């Protein structure tokens, strides 16, 4: 079974359907990019993978564990799935070091010193070891997002979810975050990335999923998607996003 399996997933907000029969999967070590216009359901889909958004129909499995099963221990499962948000969501009242160690200590039960060491190791890997005693509000957006990635990695995740990780960043800070993500991908991390960064998709992704109005319209290899997408909607989207 794939690392992430999404089968016939549908979701409604009241009578409004945000996801319609979505099916896809992410193999171990694979990087897939999910793109599409706003409101197409891509953020909802990625948040359904670790049950931050409940779904009403279909099945989602992560590493063989069914996510939308009431018997599943969700905190335990979520602890193994790293997630990076559009607005970073570092905890503003904690220093960078505390942000990195909090969940390790609380959820994984690691002794504080071990949690600190591990957090700082990943902080070093995203190039921010100097900032360990700062508060999130004292960092730039790009730095905050790199800390957020380090925070997720400190939990030793089996896969990583990125929900528009660069959309809230100033243009000159986008690359520092994309570089960290690219390095992660080359190290073999399984990644599902919602993004509009088509350059990143082209360099790093194995597959690209294109969503529109709650449907997965296109689920193709990178070469196919950028070469000649089958659906007209994806062609229009690509034309707009690549030639502006």
């Amino acid at each position: 079974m794939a690392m992430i399996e999404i089968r016939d997933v549908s979701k409604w907000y009241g009578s409004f359907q945000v996801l319609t029969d979505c099916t896809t999967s992410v193999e171990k070590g694979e990087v897939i990019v999910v793109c599409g216009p706003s409101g197409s359901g891509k953020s909802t889909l990625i948040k359904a993978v670790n049950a931050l958004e409940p779904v009403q129909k279909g099945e989602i499995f992560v590493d063989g564990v069914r996510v939308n099963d009431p018997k599943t221990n969700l905190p335990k499962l979520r602890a193994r799935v790293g997630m990076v948000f559009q607005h970073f969501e570092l905890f503003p009242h904690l220093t960078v070091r505390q942000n990195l160690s909090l969940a390790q200590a609380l959820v994984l039960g690691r002794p504080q010193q071990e949690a600190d060491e591990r957090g700082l190791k990943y902080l070093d890997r995203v190039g921010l070891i100097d900032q360990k005693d700062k508060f999130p509000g004292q960092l730039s957006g790009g730095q905050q997002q790199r800390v957020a990635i380090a925070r997720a990695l400190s939990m030793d995740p089996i896969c990583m979810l990125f929900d528009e990780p660069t959309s809230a960043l100033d243009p000159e800070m986008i690359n520092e975050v994309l570089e960290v993500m690219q390095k992660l991908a080359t190290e073999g991390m399984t990644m599902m990335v919602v993004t509009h960064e088509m350059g990143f998709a082209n360099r790093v992704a194995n597959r690209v999923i294109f969503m529109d109005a709650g449907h997965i319209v296109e689920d193709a290899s990178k070469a196919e998607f950028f070469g000649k997408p089958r659906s007209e909607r994806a062609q229009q989207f690509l034309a707009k996003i690549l030639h502006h």
Partner: protein
Amino acid sequence: MNYHWNWKIFWDLTPEGSGTYLHTLLVGLLWTLATALAAWVIALVLGVIVGVIRTTPRKWAGRFCNGYVELFRNIPLLVQMFLWFFVIPELLPKHLGDAIKQMPPPWASYVPAVLCLGFFTSARVAEQVRAGIQALPRGQRMAGTALGLTLPQTYRHVILPMTFRIILPPLTSEFLNIIKNSSVALTIGVVELTAAARAMQEFSFQVFEAFTGATILYILTNILVIYGMRWVERRVAIPGFIGPAVQAGGH
């Protein structure tokens, strides 16, 4: 105006023989503080619990807590004071009601007054806690959840630390209110500061001096509270965080 001013009245002995009039006012102030502080503890504990429950996904518990808030904030404080003093002891099982009514003098008034003020203010604190929690970005809760924190852990380590910083200024107002509202307890027999001023006026006929004295003591107490809370705000301010917590200035 034909009024005989006498500011030295504070150093005169009262006919009760309990000391000077100043002493009467200071004892009143102590009862004001004892009532307000005890009620403040109840208000904070209940207010935080009720406010938090209203923001959790537990629907029925949330509705119950909404009802709680509406009950205690929609009945005038004075009416609530009478209800706690006159009505509730009658509604309790007889032995319990009698035990309350037969408490020795200050306590039979003090205990209902503290409970009344505590519950009344807890509804207001609950409303502020709810508003503070809802003022946080929704992503904060998601980030805690996504890291594997349980709901209580997310509240304890992620949501509430920020909520308290955000609501410190309105909580300061609530603290000041509870001190001022404690004067309503005089209606059920607590001889707190306002009641002490009235006693002084009745014995000495120096109404202006009596209430000037009380006014000054209320103002001094509240200034102390304001400075104390500002100190707390500065202590918990977060470097680089642009929010209400760091805009504590003004002095």
